[in-house]
């Protein structure tokens, strides 16, 4: 990163970072004349893909209106933080911001509660804003798991927190469908896939247990406000290609660390036409690029979804300004996108299904917070038709929540799957947790609609996990090998 000096006469932003002493690169004569009389802007400019930082004195006279119009707009993430902190915040700033809700589950919850007590916490900041549920090890699969549940239940009782316990399903699905998150809010969860809530236009991010202890006590946390990568998606999907294929291809393009500490804004015609389920799939996997958050600007689809979930909610406009400064903008045309499969052992190893078609598989898992919704099961059922699953493999189907389970049940799909040979389990993380059940033996291969294919994620470290869409999973479950769903 190079630094240079420009004596600008307008403010590119009204609140760029300020320094009281002139940094290096400021010519000596200028420094001498300005020293102690002004503050200094530290400005970051984007030139092609390179970041340049430059410094400039902050001049103490009114800025002409015409020049103000030249000033940079804000991204949706900057707007959310600005609104929560009641003044203009820009990417790169570290701020202490209030949170609107916090989610803890059975794996990370106990440690967060311990930290809360270590911090001399007595009462949580607001018992109504804390979502507690168990989804990783449910019903308790071991005595330590049962003990964790007991420990958390007691905390919920003591604090007056509503505990969904084991009844409702996977944490992220439950937070969204029960209306614990709404557009423009800041929500944290002690789980990395918390970024999924960005699908409703909120800023949501996963945090560690120490940070969660702080949130439980104060209802606030410090954040480094992320810069935003905008993924501009356009075109119409081919039949049996959809949101999961899109996000696997974006992860492959950006890379496992290509969005580290940044937010990804999913934008464009294709996203606008996408249902909430698809948006959740995309935002869920933002973390697989290292992103702090994924976000879809709220639109009519979002507000319609929110209407039944948050009483009295009124639509408002929330989107990035047209002159906002993005870290990067990438365009994706989905019209020729093939079904994607991420091959072992990294999520960013996405390839078109044709490259791995014919690969033998031992287990298919359709479910998880990434793809365990009614829409995903409809997609799978359409591919299945009147056929049955191959007897050479196991098919495990797990709806992400009780609500999704009931919708799938009422539509007759559960019966269809069971008749076709699948095991349908009660809502939970299932094999994606890699410890509870549905584990793989050494040498076995799983094809999964979940979000991670790391070594050992679904059992043995000598097993392999491939990731795909519900359509590809269903097609492959019929044939017993990885199969392009467009051929079924």
């Amino acid at each position, binding site marked *: 990163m190079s630094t240079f000096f420009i004596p600008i006469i307008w403010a590119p932003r009204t609140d760029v*970072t300020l320094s009281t002493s002139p*940094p*290096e690169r400021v010519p000596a004569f200028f420094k001498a004349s300005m020293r102690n009389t002004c503050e200094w802007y530290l400005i970051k400019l984007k030139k092609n893909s390179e970041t340049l930082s430059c410094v400039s004195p902050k001049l103490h006279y009114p800025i002409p209106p015409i020049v103000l119009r030249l000033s940079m707009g804000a991204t949706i993430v900057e707007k959310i933080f600005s609104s929560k902190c009641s003044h203009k915040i820009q990417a790169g700033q570290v701020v*202490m911001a209030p949170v609107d809700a916090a989610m803890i589950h059975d794996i990370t919850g106990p440690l967060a509660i311990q930290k809360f007590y270590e911090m001399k916490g007595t009462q949580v900041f607001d018992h109504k804003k804390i979502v507690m549920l168990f989804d990783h090890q449910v019903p308790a699969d071991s005595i330590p798991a049962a003990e964790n549940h007991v420990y958390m239940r007691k905390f919920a009782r003591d604090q007056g927190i509503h505990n969904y316990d084991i009844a409702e399903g996977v944490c992220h699905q439950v937070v969204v469908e029960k209306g614990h998150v709404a557009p423009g809010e800041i929500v944290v969860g002690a789980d990395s896939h918390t970024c999924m809530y960005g699908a409703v236009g909120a800023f949501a991010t996963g945090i560690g247990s120490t*940070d969660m202890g702080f949130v439980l006590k104060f209802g*606030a946390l410090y954040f480094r406000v992320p810069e935003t990568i905008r993924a501009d998606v356009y075109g119409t999907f081919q039949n049996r290609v959809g949101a999961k294929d899109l996000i696997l291809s974006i992860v492959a393009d950006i890379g496992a660390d290509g969005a580290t500490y940044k937010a990804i804004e999913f934008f464009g015609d294709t996203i606008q036409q996408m249902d909430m389920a698809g948006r959740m799939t995309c935002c869920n996997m933002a973390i697989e690029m290292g992103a702090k958050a994924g976000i879809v600007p709220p639109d009519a689809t979002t507000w319609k979804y929110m209407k039944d979930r948050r009483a009295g909610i009124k639509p408002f406009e929330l989107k990035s300004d047209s002159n906002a400064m993005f870290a990067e903008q990438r365009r994706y045309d989905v019209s020729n996108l093939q079904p994607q499969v991420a091959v072992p052992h990294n999520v960013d190893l996405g390839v078109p299904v044709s490259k791995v078609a014919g690969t033998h598989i031992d287990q298919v898992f359709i479910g998880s917070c990434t793809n365990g919704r009614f829409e995903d099961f409809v997609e799978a059922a359409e591919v299945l038709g009147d056929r049955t699953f191959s007897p050479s493999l196991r098919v495990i189907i797990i709806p992400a929540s009780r609500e999704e389970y009931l919708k799938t049940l009422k539509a007759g799909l559960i019966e269809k799957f069971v008749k076709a040979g699948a095991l349908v389990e009660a809502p939970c993380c299932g094999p994606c947790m890699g410890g509870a059940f549905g584990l793989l033996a050494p040498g076995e291969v799983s094809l999964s609609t979940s979000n991670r294919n790391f070594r050992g994620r679904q059992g043995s470290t000598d097993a392999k996990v491939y990731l795909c869409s519900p359509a590809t999973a269903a097609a492959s479950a019929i044939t017993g090998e990885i199969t392009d769903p467009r051929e079924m």
Partner: protein
Amino acid sequence: MMRVWKFGDNIDTDAIIPGRFLTIYDEKELAKHAFEGIRDDFSRLAHDWDIIVAGRNFGCGSSREHAPLAIKGVGIRIILAQSFARIFFRNAINVGLLPLVCPDTDKIKDGSLIVVKEREGIVLIDGKEYPVEPVPEFVYRIVEAAGLVEYAKQLKEAPICTKSRL
């Protein structure tokens, strides 16, 4: 004036504290193995308040808090880097280390003597000033309290960053 310990780009958490020492939790014990294998003289020779200066993406890799603890155990209080890995940045603050972003660390040499005026947003080396990105006051408070847990113990309510507080 403190000595600079210079490191390159992408220093990962396994380089900071090798995985075989993760059963240790005491920061002084961890400190004996800091950068073991890549910079063996560091844990013996570094003094309290020396400064680590690094390139891009310092602290990448695992989320282990052992890494910033090992550095803190040596007596280091400040790390200057062009950028930090996301989780390390938080972990560092949360255990009481100050990570400062300085775009010009490539101009700083190993063994230089350095003065960090973090609140003024500059570092001084050989009479030259380099800018560092300022951090808000509450981050200093967390670091001075020796981490987030201690900071939270002292606190009645969180200092939300409204305009008056920045």
